[in-house]
């Protein structure tokens, strides 16, 4: 009896503990554009975009265990489709975004079926080749503007894009939470990641599940690409299809911790802020690449679970932290 009463008492408080940070985060992100300068609105929008992109990579790379090194292609395809539809067909922005997301998913379904048969390094190289191929095609074709790219109608309203980005990224996280953390779909993906044959043996339709996960993970980059295109108003193959888009998605997801809900978010904040702050104070140098490269190597060597994995090591207890550190650095 007493135990039950205690449970009933602690439940609401644990719920409060659980939702307080989330509510705070939501409130801060909603009032953010009203309390900071335009430069920081831009930075905030960038961080949100990368958080969404890193999470969408995490769906296929982290939860399913298929390292996609061509995910930037979906971002670029989304940006081009939104751009082309707004310029040539005069479609409204929102509809353009939706169509971009759906077409990016469709593309993922089409290429996913043959490509997802490959595993490990083969899948990584095949998707990388695919991503680069899309970039080359965008450079060759005429209606995409070739190497010069597309000039979109400009709409200078920073808070507007901040809120659109917030909405899309919020939806990315909500979808990931509902479908991958709270539904059977997520468990099936984890089963595929841990042991694909075993998953198939216990009755998971691995081919279908993998393809749906790939399509889902391509939807959000498509939409975010569309938002990005209208936001910066000028896109060209190197800016939206370049290898650096995929690189940063992978880096952020890994730094934060793959296969977790909040890892990519943390990774995006850290990487984007470090990069921008270095850029603001030291000018447009390239030294940030050294820091990012060293950070990735260090993460793989010392904290393979990413920043989010530090939670389990109780790094905030000084004595514990020192002994942990000793253990980790020991060769």
């Amino acid at each position, binding site marked *: 009896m007493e135990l039950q009463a205690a449970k009933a008492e602690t439940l609401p408080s644990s719920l409060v503990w659980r939702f307080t940070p989330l509510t705070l985060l939501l409130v801060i992100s909603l009032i953010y554009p009203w309390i900071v300068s335009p430069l920081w609105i831009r930075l905030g929008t960038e961080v949100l975009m990368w958080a969404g992109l890193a999470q969408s990579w995490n769906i296929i790379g982290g939860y399913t265990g298929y390292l996609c090194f061509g995910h930037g292609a979906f971002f670029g395809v989304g940006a081009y489709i939104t751009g082309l539809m707004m310029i040539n067909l005069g479609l409204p922005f929102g509809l353009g975004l939706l169509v971009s997301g759906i077409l990016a998913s469709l593309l993922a379904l089409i290429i996913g079926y043959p490509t997802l048969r490959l595993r490990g390094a083969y899948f990584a190289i095949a998707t990388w080749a695919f991503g680069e191929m899309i970039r080359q095609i965008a450079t060759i074709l005429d209606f995409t503007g070739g190497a010069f790219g597309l000039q979109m109608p400009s709409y200078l309203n920073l808070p507007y894009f901040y809120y659109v980005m917030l909405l899309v990224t919020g939806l990315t996280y909500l979808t990931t939470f509902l479908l991958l953390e709270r539904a059977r779909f997520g468990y099936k993906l984890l089963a595929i990641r841990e042991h694909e044959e075993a998953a198939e043996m216990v009755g998971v339709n691995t081919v279908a599940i993998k393809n749906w996960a790939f399509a889902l993970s391509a939807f959000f980059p498509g939409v975010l690409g569309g938002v990005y295109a209208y936001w910066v108003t000028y896109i060209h193959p190197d800016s939206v299809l370049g290898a650096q888009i995929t690189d940063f998605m992978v880096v952020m997801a890994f730094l934060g911790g793959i296969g977790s809900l909040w890892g990519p978010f943390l990774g995006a904040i850290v990487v984007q802020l470090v990069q921008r702050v270095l850029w603001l104070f030291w000018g447009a140098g390239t030294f940030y690449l*050294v820091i990012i490269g060293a950070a990735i190597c260090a993460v793989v060597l010392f904290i393979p679970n990413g920043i989010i994995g530090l939670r389990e090591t109780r790094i905030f207890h000084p004595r514990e932290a020192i002994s942990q550190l000793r253990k980790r650095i020991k060769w």
Partner: protein
Amino acid sequence: MELFLQTIIDGLLIGGLIIIVGIGFSLCFGVMHIVDFAVGEWVMLGAYAGYLMVRYFGHDPMIYLPVIFLIFCALGWMIYPLIFRAVSGKGHNPVIMGLVFTFGLSILMKGGALSVWGYHIQSITTWLSGKGISFGVLTVPALRVSGFAFGILVTLLFMLFLYKTKFGIIIRATAQDRDTANLLGADVRKVGALVYSLYAGVTGMSGVLIGALFSIHASMGTKYATLAFFVVVLAGMGYVPGVLVAALVLGLLQSFVTVYIGGRYTLAALFLVMYGVLLITPKGILKRGI
């Protein structure tokens, strides 16, 4: 007809050079199952090493090739423990950890080179630069011929090492079955270190030749990484003799597309073929990969 012959010869000569980049990379995958994303950066560092040596000590870059080979072997030997640690972590897919670690390494190397040497484009001049060798109606640059000859020579030496020496037998045994080789007394960790340092040495050395033939800049790595990946995919990942065939196919494809279709289609064609080969025969065109 003349153009056709010239295209074939150009393609073969380029292919000969790419063999050197691909061969170490393929062995590295075959033995350790590591896809080294930093392959292009090793080429770039090799090219800069050659450039700096010529600048500070003078003489012809060709005589520094053995020195650069040794320096890069040492570098590879020093970096290998880190890679071994990255791929042998428990509870994680080693292939993925290796990929991400070498990816970080490549960003680090590229960023370091950009920070130190900037965006300036450099070049190396050798005693062969600007000379030509004529075969009947055709004239080809002497440097390319020597690059091709060097590529073939390095491949032959590599093959002799792999198939005729005791070390080579141990390496091949490890590539075939890691655990059995370990049981029979091969120190798998040392074999890995040897292979990685050989790979770094050979790739760094190829950088000097590539630097002498083309230009040197900090972001040149991506292009050669593309070519190395292409060669290894076509050859069948981990199948070293296939590199010879695949590199020549690559050279021919590149020069034919450039001459007969247009320069801007070259890369698109390369990636299309690479993607197609991976989908249709993931073990390479010779079906001998792992």
